[in-house]
Every structure is written in C-alpha cells, then in structure tokens.
C-alpha cells in the first residue's frame, strides 16, 4: 500500500467517524441524514449492553482459540495492529501508518505512541513481535490465526515504535492479515494467565467468563479510538455477552427485555419480526456473514478426473440440478442474495461480470447424468452440524440431486468427523461455507489455489490458469485490477465446478430502541473502527 493510499484510508476513516456516530443511530430510526448530522441525538457515556448471542468462545486465550468476530462476546476484547471499517477495509488501529517495500516483501508498521494493553503495559514494537511469534508457534496459535501469518518469515524491531514484517513471498495485501481479526495482540506480561484472564487491547477489557452462561466485559478507559469530538470510545461502560444457543429462546429473551441485542435471528422469524415488531425493535441486516457453497470431492470418486473421465460432465449435471432460487426460498426464507462469486454486492471486492454457474435445468441435468460415466454411482453429501444453513442447504441439494436421478445419501456430522472425512476423502459432496474474508487472497490463496494445503486436503481442485491469476493478483497493487482478476477466477471456478457458490449467508440482528449509534458491519461484527458497539450508547 502506498503512502497516499494509506493516507486516503485514514482520511476516510476520520470522515467516517465524524458522521457515523451521529448518523448510525439516526439512520436506524429512519431520520433523514442531514437531521442526524445536525446532531439531534448526542451520544451519551455509560450504560451496559446485554448481548444475546448464538455462540460463545470455547476458551479465553485469544491466540489459542478462534475468536469469531460475530456471535462471540470475546470479540469485544480483541484489538490489533489494524482495524477494519464498516466496509471491511483495513484502517489504522495500534499502528498509525504502514508501508510496503517496492518488492512487497517487507512491510513496516509505525505504532501510535502511548497506546496500552488493558493491564497498562505499553504496546511497543517488541511486544508486537512477541505476539506474532506466539501466534506462529504451532503449539499455541490456532490454525486459523496462524494461517493469516503463513507468509511471515520473521519479524524485526527497528525502534520502539517501528516493527517490520519480512515475508517469504511478495504480498500486496499483507496488511489485511494483521487486522485484529484474527491477529490480535495480548499483553506479554499476561501470557501465563491467558487461559483464565486474557489481556488484549480492544475497546473492552475482560471481567469474567462463565462457560455457557455469561461473558462480562467492561470499558477499556485507555482505548486508542476517539469520536469526532475527541471523546474517547467506547461510550458504553461494558457489555455482557449472554450465549443463548436456542434461536427461539434468544428471540424471546429480547422480546421480554432480558437482553438488549441479539444476533442470528432464525431465518424463519426474520421477515415476520420486522413486520410485526419493527415499531418496538430495531433490526440490522447483515448481508454477508460468509459465502455458502456446495463443494465436490475432486480427489477421488465419481467427481474426480482421476477416477472418472466424465467427472466434469457429472459435476455439470449436478450443477444443472441445483436450483438456487429454491435454496433462497427454503433455507433463507427469501432473505439475502444468491452468490455467483465469493463476494456480495456490499463488499468492495464484489466482481461485477462473473459468468455464473450452469443455470437450473432439471432436464439437462438428467440427460447429462445419464450420459456421463459414473452417473449411477452412490454419492454421499455431508454437512457440518454447527450451522443450520449448511445442513439445510445439504438437505435441499440432496433433494434436488435426487430429483435429477442421482443416487445420493445425506449425513450430518460434527466438526471432527467432517474433518476426518476430508482427510480420508470419504465423501462426494460437501455442503459448506466460508466466513467473509477481508482480502480475497484469504479465500483464493487458501481454498482455491491448487498448492494450498486446504485445497489439497478438502477438494483437490487444480487449474493452472486459476493458479496463475491468484498468484498474480497477490502481487498486484492496483485494487481495481485485482478485483477483476479475482472475478476472472470465479468465472473459471463456475466453469470448472470444483464447487458451486450458492449463497451469501445473511443475518439479522435486533435490539431495543434504547440502543443508539449501533450498526454491525455488513459481515456481522460488532467491533470495528468508527462503529458497532464502539459508538453505541443507551438512551
């Protein structure tokens, strides 16, 4: 990223900050923008928000565990070198400015001075280095956290406030990998208590955690971010995360005022709720929690070119059998949008001219299946049990493939079994999804590129042209050009069909009218620069 670019993003962040705090609250209640800008509602300090969430962290060490930035209260605790803004673009956080060398192999981050961890330790370059090394330790760092740093060869410290990342391969978008999600910073002095009392540098600090019950966070008084008037953020005194797994109970808890805010409303309830309770509650649409897809096993079996010369034809037959509108209707209750590529319209990475997957055409599907070798093979569809939409998409895909004459069975399994099936290749079709990636490289280099370990392990897709594009995009500095390259990759994916994109997973959050100035980013997180719970207050 060039200095100019970076300045631009910094500026847009400032601008954004100036207006959001006033805007966000007003926009929710439908006031015209200028009225909000005129400052009709002024943020108030204080108040604690009770947030009913579907999930909970499994453990407290934010390096060792995957702290999902949606639906896990602990995400309010985490902070890092960079933040993202409402559009999911990287902006300054602990680092004030950053720059890449001409060969894109060395990235230098200059830290703000006087920024602290929750325990008062100063965040300096040495501590950043220590954090990166801790995450990279395979015995400690969670595989997802580590995967953001796979390119890092070593980290050096220039001076107290300057830290340098030396990469193995050039990377034009490395900065997106040191955003607090997932590369968060913890205080080195707190490492031995990381499993019981985590100390990070996000907007809220840890107070207590009771598994399956409560996660209590309180305001971090020395958080680095301020609003346009220089008031320190967040406005809230704290947040209490209440994991309530059962959708119906979570919604009831909101309606009976036991919590102020909930996430992941059941798709069946969403349209009705907005209609019937829109007057007493605010709702916020999340347009792309992630991207759902149906992946084929190209490593072995009837969909693999290794075992079946007609593998591609068979995948085409399956693709023609999939009715995306049906999934739209049944799984998501007509919420959100059908996916033709990895990025939806709200994303800055949305590709406009992607050629979509084969259209729904049951007759063609049947004909192709009959013609292709292996069309009568017994097929197994699997889905992970953690997410209802994966199961329901799988269930629907099962029905649709059955309609086209495929001999399919469907199974739902917990994560360890699904992982085991990936490792052994004992599945044919996988109803899965991937959470939103801030930079496209995070999806394409990890899950489409033929040399990536996950590609090899899960579906085994290989296309030289695709590989070339992904590798070229990784070192392309021009954002528009990169976007086009990834769109081209998606076009090829839609043609080769290692997987069929199905859906941008939507979400709906709802809260009481007392909550002002709150809005999740379009991918769902509540902790981001210039918005979310950082700028929320309670009337």
């Amino acid at each position, binding site marked *: 990223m060039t200095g100019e670019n970076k300045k631009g993003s910094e500026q847009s962040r400032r601008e954004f900050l100036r207006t959001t705090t006033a805007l966000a609250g007003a926009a929710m209640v439908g006031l015209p923008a200028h009225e909000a800008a005129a400052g009709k509602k002024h943020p108030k300090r204080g108040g604690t928000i009770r947030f009913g969430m579907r999930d909970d962290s499994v453990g407290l060490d934010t390096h060792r565990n995957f702290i999902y930035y949606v639906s896990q209260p602990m995400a309010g605790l985490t902070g890092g070198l960079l933040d993202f803004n409402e559009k999911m673009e990287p902006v300054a956080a602990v680092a004030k400015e950053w720059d890449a060398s001409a060969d894109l192999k060395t990235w230098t981050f200059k830290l703000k001075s006087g920024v602290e961890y929750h325990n008062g330790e100063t965040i300096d370059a040495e501590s950043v280095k220590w954090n990166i090394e801790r995450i990279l330790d395979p015995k400690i760092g969670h595989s997802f956290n580590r995967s953001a740093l796979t390119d890092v060869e070593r980290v050096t410290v220039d001076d107290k406030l300057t830290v340098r990342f030396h990469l193995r391969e050039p990377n034009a978008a490395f900065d997106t990998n040191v955003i607090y999600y997932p590369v968060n910073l913890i205080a080195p002095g707190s490492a031995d208590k990381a499993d019981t009392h985590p100390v990070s540098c996000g907007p809220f600090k840890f107070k207590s955690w009771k598994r399956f019950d409560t996660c209590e966070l309180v305001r971090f008084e020395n958080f680095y971010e301020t609003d346009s008037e220089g008031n320190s953020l967040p406005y809230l005194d704290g947040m209490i995360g209440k994991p309530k797994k059962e959708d119906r109970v979570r919604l009831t808890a909101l309606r009976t005022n036991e919590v102020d805010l909930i996430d992941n409303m059941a798709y069946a309830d969403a349209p009705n709720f907005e209609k019937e309770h829109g007057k007493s509650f605010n709702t916020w649409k999340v347009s792309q929690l992630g991207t759902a897809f149906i992946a084929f096993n190209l490593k072995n079996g009837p969909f693999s070119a290794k075992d079946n010369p007609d593998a591609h034809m068979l995948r085409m037959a399956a693709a023609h059998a999939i009715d995306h509108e049906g999934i739209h209707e049944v799984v998501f209750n007509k919420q959100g949008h059908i996916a033709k590529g990895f990025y939806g319209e709200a994303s800055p990475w949305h590709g406009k001219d992607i050629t979509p997957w084969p259209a729904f055409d049951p007759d063609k599907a049947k004909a192709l299946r009959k013609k292709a070798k292996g069309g009568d093979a017994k097929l197994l569809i699997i889905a992970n049990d953690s997410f209802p939409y994966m199961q329901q998409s799988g269930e629907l895909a099962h*029905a649709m493939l059955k309609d086209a004459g495929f001999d399919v069975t469907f199974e739902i399994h917990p994560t360890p079994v699904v992982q085991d099936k990936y490792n052994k290749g004992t599945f044919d079709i996988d109803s899965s999804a991937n959470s939103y990636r801030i930079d496209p490289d995070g999806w394409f280099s990890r899950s489409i590129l033929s040399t990536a370990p996950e590609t090899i392990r899960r579906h085994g897709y290989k296309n030289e042209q695709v590989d070339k594009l992904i590798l070229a995009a990784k070192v392309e500095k021009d954002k528009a050009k990169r976007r086009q390259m990834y769109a081209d990759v998606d076009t090829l994916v839609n043609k080769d069909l290692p997987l069929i994109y199905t859906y941008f997973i939507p979400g709906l959050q709802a809260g009481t009218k007392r909550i002002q100035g709150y809005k999740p980013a379009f991918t769902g997180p509540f902790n981001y620069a210039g918005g979310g719970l950082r700028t929320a207050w309670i009337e």
Partner: protein
Amino acid sequence: MTELPASKLAVFADLPALPGRRKRLVAGVSRAWYELRKSRTAFIGFWMLVVLFSACIATPWIATHDPIKQSYRERLAPPSEKHFLGTDRMGRDIYSRLLWGGRRLVTIALLAVTFGLSLGIPYGVLSGYFGGKVDTVAMRVVDGLLAFPGLLLYLLIVTLAREWKLEGIYNDLILVFALGFAFTPEVARLSRGTTLAEKQKEYVEASRAIGDGSFSIALKQILPNIISPLIVNATVRLGYVILIIAALSFLGLGTPPPTPDWGSDLSAARDYMETAPLIAAFPGIAICYTVLAFNLFGDGLRDILDPRLAER
C-alpha cells in the same frame, strides 16, 4: 380380543410350561382380557396402541404422498384437501411423513427393545443361575454401565454408532443396536434378580432332582417365570426409546433428513413454532400419543401382573 397375539398372552398369564398347554392358554387369554378390562389405564393404552399399530401397518395404503418428496414451491401450506395436515418447511406432506415416520419409529423402538432383551436376558439369567465368580464379574460390568448417569451412555453410544457407522450398514439399524445396547444392562440386572428369586423355588429344585442340565433348567424353567416383570419394563421402555430418539434429534444426533422422523421433524420445526406452529404441533402430538399409549399400557400391565396389587 383377536388383536393381542396369543403367544404374548401366554406369557402374561404367568404360566409354567406344563402339560395341557392349549387348554391353559385359552384360559390364560380370557383371564388376561378380563384383567385388561378391569385396569382402566391398560384398557385405554391398549386401544391407543391398536390404533397406532393399525396405522403403522396400513401406512403404505393410507399415506397420500411420498414422504421425502419435497416441492418447495408449496412449502408451509396449511391443511387442505390435498395435504391433510399441510406441508412442512420443504413442502413435504406432513400427514404422509407422520405415517411413515411413525412406522419407522415404532419399528426401531420394537427392534431396539427386543435387541436389548435378547442380549440382556441370557446374560442376566445365566449370571444369576450360575452365581459365584461368574456372577460377580458379570454384574460388575453391568453396574459399571448402569453407573452412567442419565442420558450419557446413550449420548456416547449413539455418537459412536452414528459417526463410526460402517459403510453399507443401514443407519436405522445402527440406532437399533445403539439403543438396544444401552437398554441391555437394565434388562440384565432385572432378569438376574428375578432368576435369583426363582432359583430357590421348588419347581427348579424338582427339575434338578430329575437330572435336567443347568442350561436346560435356566432356559426352560426359569425364563418363562421371570418374563412378566420384563414385559412391563420393556413396554414402558418402548415409549422411553421414542423420547430418547427425539432428545437425540434435538441435540443433533438424530436421523438426518429427509428420512421421515418425528424427532427430527419436531426439532427442525422449532424455527417455525411462532410463524407456523402447526408444523411442530403434529409430530409433537404424535410422539406424545405414542409414548402415552405405551406408558398407559405398561402401567396397566404392571397392575395386572403384580399379583399383590391385582388382588385389590
């Protein structure tokens, strides 16, 4: 009167195997029928079960749709002439799903309980009959399994069976083995206890004196006499197994769709409990009905078969 198979009633009537069997059998059947009518709960349960089993047997003829055929354009339809109970979230006919699901569920429950009995009874009877060290070791194993509190044994076994499932073995069969196996220790302990009591009785001593072999005594003489408490236990167990399957569905360990399954259907209908409550109501009521029928009947049977209570 004809609905109850005579072979079962012979068992209910607590008859030792003696000459003049047929005559005793007829007498037994009429005695059982008399007792059944006397116990109001058993009588209600009995007729509820008659309706249930008739529906299960008649399913292929009275179901109107393919239970797994989805047509999502017609999803969440209210009850109508075409779909008696409406359609579910995938547009499948709820009425047909209930019938096929019930047939499947009742079969699984029956097979699982039978499997548990057929493992547990020989285990318990032989252990009790031989006594001594064999009994001690055998019962420690049973006690170890019974020390699993509540659902945990079921959770472990079903998780294991479901995830470890061998290719080619039908999923439902796995459920039968898992649920049956989890029932085994209870059966073993119950049959061992009654065997110990029976062992002391005169007729066993008599058989021994005649020179019958141990196995022959254990199987021929003791077995028929300990079976009535087991029948009661098994009947109530049938209902329990159905509830366990429902609970496992809620926990995500149930039968994967689209197989018609009351538990999974009820669990999946949770999302629609406010917007389309009927979808959840039908499988829920079906489960209640069936379990209640087994419980009423089993409860009544206990009255009939427990002579102490029957005297009143």
